[in-house]
């Protein structure tokens, strides 16, 4: 459904992504793990066109083209077919929880207001926040904000939702509620690509794990393979370090 080949990105002459290739099938729940600075955020941002890639190829949503040859229309197509859940939520602070969700439906998708509200309420229900629909982001806890962020993404029914460390900004006691929502999404067949430091999520929820370091995909495979029998030395070292820290 989504195929990335040879994706490259550098900042000011500094190579951050050095040729990333992977594909996402419908229903996949892919966890991307790796040390800080390895380019995970940059990877999600270039695929979703928030950053311009310097090279590579994408086929997705009817597009089959080099990143650098994408025109405005292609970029719109990509943006309309992905969802994004940000590390720091990025809710619209001047809109209520409900309006955060209806905004994209009404303004971008031209859905009728009443219909948009219905869709938004369903999304809020899935993340368990029906009773907070009229709260502004400043009146919600971090966990609740992130759940609104997730509801905002699923309401648009994108082909794939990208999550960039959705629980990293949360107090530890709020991480669970967000992971629970993500697990429910995964169980209901939502296609997800999740950058995470939550090894439990990577191991128990995803069907594929990608280990990234230094702008490369070092290895990828089933959670069982990566966690129990990694082939690369770097993967082993990373997992030993991170798991011994818990």
């Amino acid at each position, binding site marked *: 459904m989504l195929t990335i080949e040879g994706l490259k990105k550098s900042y000011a002459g500094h190579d951050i992504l050095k040729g990333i290739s992977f594909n996402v099938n419908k229903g996949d729940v892919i966890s991307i793990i790796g040390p800080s600075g390895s380019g995970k955020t940059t990877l999600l941002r270039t695929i979703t066109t928030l950053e311009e890639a310097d090279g590579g190829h994408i086929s997705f949503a009817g597009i089959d083209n080099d990143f650098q040859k994408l025109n405005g229309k292609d970029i719109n197509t990509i943006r309309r077919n992905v969802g994004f859940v940000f590390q720091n939520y*990025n809710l619209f*602070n001047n809109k209520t929880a409900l309006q955060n969700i209806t*905004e994209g439906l009404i*303004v*971008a998708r031209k859905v009728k207001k009443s219909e948009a509200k219905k869709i938004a309420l369903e999304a809020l229900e899935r993340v368990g926040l029906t009773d907070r629909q009229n709260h502004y982001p400043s009146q919600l806890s971090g966990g609740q904000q992130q759940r609104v962020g997730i509801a*905002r993404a699923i309401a648009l029914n994108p082909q794939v939702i990208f999550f960039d460390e959705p629980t990293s900004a949360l107090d530890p006691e709020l991480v669970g509620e967000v992971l629970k929502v993500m697990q429910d999404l995964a169980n209901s067949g939502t296609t997800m690509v999740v950058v995470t430091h939550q090894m439990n999520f990577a191991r128990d929820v995803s069907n594929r794990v990608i280990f990234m370091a230094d702008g490369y995909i070092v290895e990828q495979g089933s959670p069982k393979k990566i966690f129990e029998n990694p082939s690369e030395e770097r993967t082993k070292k990373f997992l030993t370090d991170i798991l011994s820290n818990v």
Partner: protein
Amino acid sequence: MENIKLIVNFLGQLLPAINITLIVSLSSIILGSLLGLLLAAARLSQSVILRVLASIYVSVIRATPSIIMIFLVYYGMPLLFNGWFHTNIDGWNRMYFVIIALTLLFSAPVSEIMRSAYESISKGQMEAGLLVGMSPFQTFYRIILPQAFVVALPNFANSVVNLLKEGALTFTIGVVDMVAKAQMIVANNSGGYAWQTYCALALIYWVISLAIDKGVSLVEKSYQKKRKTIAV
């Protein structure tokens, strides 16, 4: 008691000239805000040249005393128009020169206020808007602008009050505004009742400034209230 009567009397004589002050101020606020918006956009743009030019402009304008700016425009512009466009603008209503000078003066602080208000709204909200399918303009207009507006409001009001006060220099190039009127009244009274006259004038400026402050705090309150009442 005598003084109060006098002041009230002078108020009556001064107030008809308030429309000059209002026209000059309002025009400069509107034009200055537009110019400030362009400057802010230039300072936030990708182009290094635009950014540098705009920031030089802002520093220069900020360092120019209002009275000098008014004289520069009043004496300089006719020369400029003569030299460049071979047009004679000596016949222009003098008010125009004040409006141009105040517009230039107002645009500098306003551009800074707009820029910092814009920057205070996290870039992430723009990205979130793009990834729910809205265009950059839609996101700016519906998400960023309303928030930046609230942030900018108090400082903007402050600049408006400053502009109002700088506008009291309008008389220096011979426009008959309230200040000029006050001078005439004092002259007509052979220099008598001068402090009562200027006291009346000061009162008018105080009331306008207070009204601006009050208006702004009402708008701010209504924003805060909106957020409080909706969520129970």
